[in-house]
């Protein structure tokens, strides 16, 4: 479904020097897979995720989505993003819109659905995450866990073929992590293709089809969750796991 070839990303610092955050990364993601990416901060894992929908422009390399090279010049990236939802660490719900408007804005403005269909879809999804009673409130009145569940639902309203999660539980109070992970697990069970950057090792172990370990911009290790957590191959991953588990 997604094919990443030789992905490289450099940032230019204020002093004009370049730093390389991703170095020659290759990876294939199949339909229905749940990829969890872990790694220390500064490892490039978020940048990798954000390159997949081109929120970050790769410096070099190619990304293919269903055979189409999205990194090619002239690709309509907006069309690609309609099929690829994203959930952010800081929720990023639209503060000026009610929950219902948050959910229906994109489908309606992008003419994926009409107003009525979008509202029906939103209602159904809100029911599924038990937040239908919040349909007409503004995001400011919601808890973090509620915001993140709404943010997930907002992406789902576009009927995406895959979902990207950028540390979706890192900004939450501990007691709210569970409710968000539950929604994600449900989504995984429904067969959604998912790429998740997270520090929730339990989630990785339980849900992932593959776990990726990134360090200093390099995809260092990749394996099934059992092998990944029980038999880490590299010294670096062994160190990392001994600190986080």
């Amino acid at each position, binding site marked *: 479904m997604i094919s990443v070839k030789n992905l490289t990303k450099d940032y230019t610092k204020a002093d004009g020097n370049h730093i390389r955050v991703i170095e020659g990364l290759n990876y294939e993601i199949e339909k229905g897979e749940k990829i969890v990416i872990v790694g220390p901060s500064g490892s490039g894992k978020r940048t990798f995720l954000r390159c997949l*929908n081109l*929120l970050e*422009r790769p410096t070099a390399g190619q990304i293919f989505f269903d055979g189409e090279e999205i990194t090619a010049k002239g690709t309509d*990236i*907006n*069309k*690609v*993003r*309609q*099929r*690829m*939802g*994203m959930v*952010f660490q*800081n929720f*990023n*719900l*639209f*503060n*000026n*819109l009610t929950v219902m408007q948050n959910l229906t*804005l*994109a489908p309606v*403005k*992008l003419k994926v659905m009409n107003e009525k269909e979008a509202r029906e879809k939103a209602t159904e999804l809100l029911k599924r995450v038990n937040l239908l009673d919040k349909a007409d409130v*503004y995001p*400011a*009145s919601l808890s973090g866990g509620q915001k993140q569940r709404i*943010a997930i639902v*907002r*992406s789902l309203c*576009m009927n995406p073929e895959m979902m*990207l999660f950028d540390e979706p539980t890192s900004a939450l109070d501990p007691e709210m992590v569970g409710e968000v992970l539950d929604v994600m697990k449900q989504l995984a069970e429904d067969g959604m293709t998912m790429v998740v950057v997270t520090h929730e090792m339990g989630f990785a172990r339980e849900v992932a089809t593959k776990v990726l370990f990134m360090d200093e911009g390099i995809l260092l290790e990749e394996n099934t969750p059992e092998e990944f957590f029980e038999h880490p191959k590299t010294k670096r991953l062994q160190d990392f796991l001994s600190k986080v588990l």
Partner: protein
Amino acid sequence: MTISERFAAAFITGERWKLYISGLGITLEIALFAGILGIIIGTVAALMKLSTTEDGKPTILNYIASVYVDVIRGTPSVLQLLIMWFIVMASSNNGILVASLSFGINSGAYVSEIVRGGILAVDKGQMEAGRSLGLSKAKTMRYIVLPQAMKNVIPPLGNEFITLVKETAIVGYVSLSDLTRVANQIASRTYDAFMPLIGAAVIYFIVIKILTILLGKLERRMRRSDLR
């Protein structure tokens, strides 16, 4: 002359009060047109200044907007008005139009900086979220970022409009009879500056006080979505 005689001379004799009202009318007319024009020009200039290519490089539009803001801020508004009246629009004898345009263009430069600040103050996650759903930059700007920026800019924009109302007092230079000029003319006709000038000052003050109250109301309404 007694106080009441001076008051009568300044405001009542020959129905002079009507002159103040028509003067105030001209002041407000120019301020209103210029204010609206300023917001339009200012928003466009702010968007131009913030425009980048998809990979984040500045565009020619940045440059044009910067030059506009620099030129307007770098020259006195009286001079801009005179240039507009005697040079740019010398063929027009519609003073209100010329003054509205001149003040609108002037105000736009200040408004553009206000709007730019307001847009930059909106969390950039809002833009990213819109883009991640497949909305274009323009659509996300229009439906998400600008409405939130508007809330940020209402107080400084109100301030700018208040400045504008008072700044129109220089339209006497192009022989428009606004409130200030009317008061000045009556002062020279009655040989008594006190009553007409203080009177005009009081009128300005009341108008601006009313504006301030209305702006406060607007600001509270715009903050609705922040309420819990």
